[in-house]
């Protein structure tokens, strides 16, 4: 079930370089959201910009009916969104998409995030913790400035290994390389990853090498977000080699072995 909510904004403030935390009240969405699902937000009351913006759900507070997202200001939509004041309203459609699937019997999993890919993995971490599945979080950022304070990532905060492309924090290099240094040593049953496409692609190669099954959350430009317009296609394995799937409705989470990388 998905809902359209004129949600009251609880907070909306900067938490790192160009990165904002937004919480809004939408009890229907909070009630039914699953880790890996996303919300689709209108960033303007006018038609410029016209389309909604998809953001992964970082966490929910079912008691207060709150939904939290983390977003990077990259363009017009997120720029306008960062100006929304607490107390005002944002039009939200969600929860949307198919979230992560916990593999039966998994006991130790790796969560691998590039940039704000950390958001849906926070939500996932919480759910794993409830099911007493151990998770190690690998989080890559470009530079220390983009790293989020531990109190922003409460569930994962004490189990996170950082990597920074520029060496300003934690491991010097990509999060995939960081993960690789562990993958050889520590036994993981499964992995979940979210982040930019090139990172996920690199990760898929590493995972294959270590015979590690997993799921990745993809991103593509979206229209409707509900599976109707066929604008958000990605290649997945299919009858004659590959077929197009809809990131918004068939994903955004796909088993890593299903994805046909561009």
């Amino acid at each position: 079930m998905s809902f359209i909510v004129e949600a009251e904004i609880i907070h909306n403030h900067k938490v790192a370089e160009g990165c904002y935390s937004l919480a809004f009240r939408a009890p229907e969405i909070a009630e039914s959201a699953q880790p890996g699902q996303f919300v689709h937000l209108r960033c303007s009351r006018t038609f410029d910009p016209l389309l909604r913006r998809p953001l992964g759900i970082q966490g929910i507070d079912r008691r207060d009916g709150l939904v939290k997202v983390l977003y990077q200001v990259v363009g017009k939509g997120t720029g306008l969104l960062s100006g929304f004041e607490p107390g005002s309203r944002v039009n939200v459609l969600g929860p949307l998409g198919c979230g992560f699937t916990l593999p039966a019997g998994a006991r130790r999993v790796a969560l691998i995030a590039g940039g704000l890919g950390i958001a849906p993995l926070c939500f996932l971490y919480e759910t794993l913790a409830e099911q007493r599945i151990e998770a190690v979080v690998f989080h890559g950022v470009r530079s220390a400035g983009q790293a989020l304070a531990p109190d922003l990532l409460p569930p994962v905060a004490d189990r996170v290994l950082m990597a920074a492309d520029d060496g300003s924090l934690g491991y010097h290099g990509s999060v995939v390389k960081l993960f690789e240094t562990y993958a050889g040593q520590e036994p993981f049953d499964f992995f979940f990853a979210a982040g930019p496409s090139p990172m996920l692609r690199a990760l898929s190669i590493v995972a294959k090498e270590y015979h590690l099954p997993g799921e990745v959350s993809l991103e593509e430009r979206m229209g409707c977000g509900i599976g109707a317009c066929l604008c958000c296609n990605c290649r997945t394995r299919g009858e004659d080699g590959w077929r197009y799937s809809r990131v918004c409705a068939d994903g955004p989470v796909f088993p890593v072995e299903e994805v046909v990388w561009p």
Partner: protein
Amino acid sequence: MINTAVELAGIKLKNPVLTASGTFGYGYEYARFFDLSRLGALVVKTLTLEPRKGNPPPRITETPCGMLNAVGLENPGAERFIREILPGLKQYPVPLIVSIAGCSVEEYATMARLMTSAGSIDALEVNISCPNVKAGGIAFGTVPEMAAEVIRVVRLNTDLPIIAKLTPNVTDIAGIAVVVVEAGADAVSLINTVTGMVIDIERRRPVLANQVGGLSGPAIRPIAIRAVWQVYRAVKVPIIGMGGIMEARDAIEFMLAGARAVAVGTANLVNPLAADNVVRGIEEYLASHGISDVNELVGAAHGKED
């Protein structure tokens, strides 16, 4: 009592609000947001004879007050549609209009036959914006003779009402309307998307994998209103107006320009409730303006003298 029913090429619609092909999937994606029987009719995504994968991503980009898409007619093909999707569509108590296309006149003919014999379809919308492979890829709808030829063969292959969907990418849309009506179209729908392009100034390449795409949304509404205005003066058949309808007031603008029905397109992507809101908003406008029959709006902006 206010009458919102309109007649369209022999089909009676409880209100003039349709969905624009390609923006409403096959309906069921929206059925979880509102009761589809609220609509005047359901127009589904264009179908072709064979399944089509469509264009590679990215297929969409945003433009000021609009969007550009190049889905490339991805669809499951006629056979799978009839077998797997049509039975589900029948459950909605709402007239069903199926949009068909082809890359040759023969394909249009076959599609018309197949859909007619499939049953439980109320009308065919013929999307003539497709490239004619034999004519080097020129869109059927941009050449009067080619447009007329398509409608003629569809007419020969169906007894369903035919709606010709016109492209705005022509010098004289009214001229195209005239020839498709002569060729047997019972109604015309307009406008399809306007050809456009966006270039990424960092990558220095077109944003869409397909390079060009179709512009839709509020940005094109003035173009669409003008097209409906011109076509209304040129032909007698009913017009289905579309292009940037976001709210009821936009739909009313189309009706005043000459549309007997309207279709909500891009707005569905922005707000899944858009079509339902337009239905409600038209009712409110009629009530607040003391208009007892929605048909009074049709073409009213042309005035008496014109």
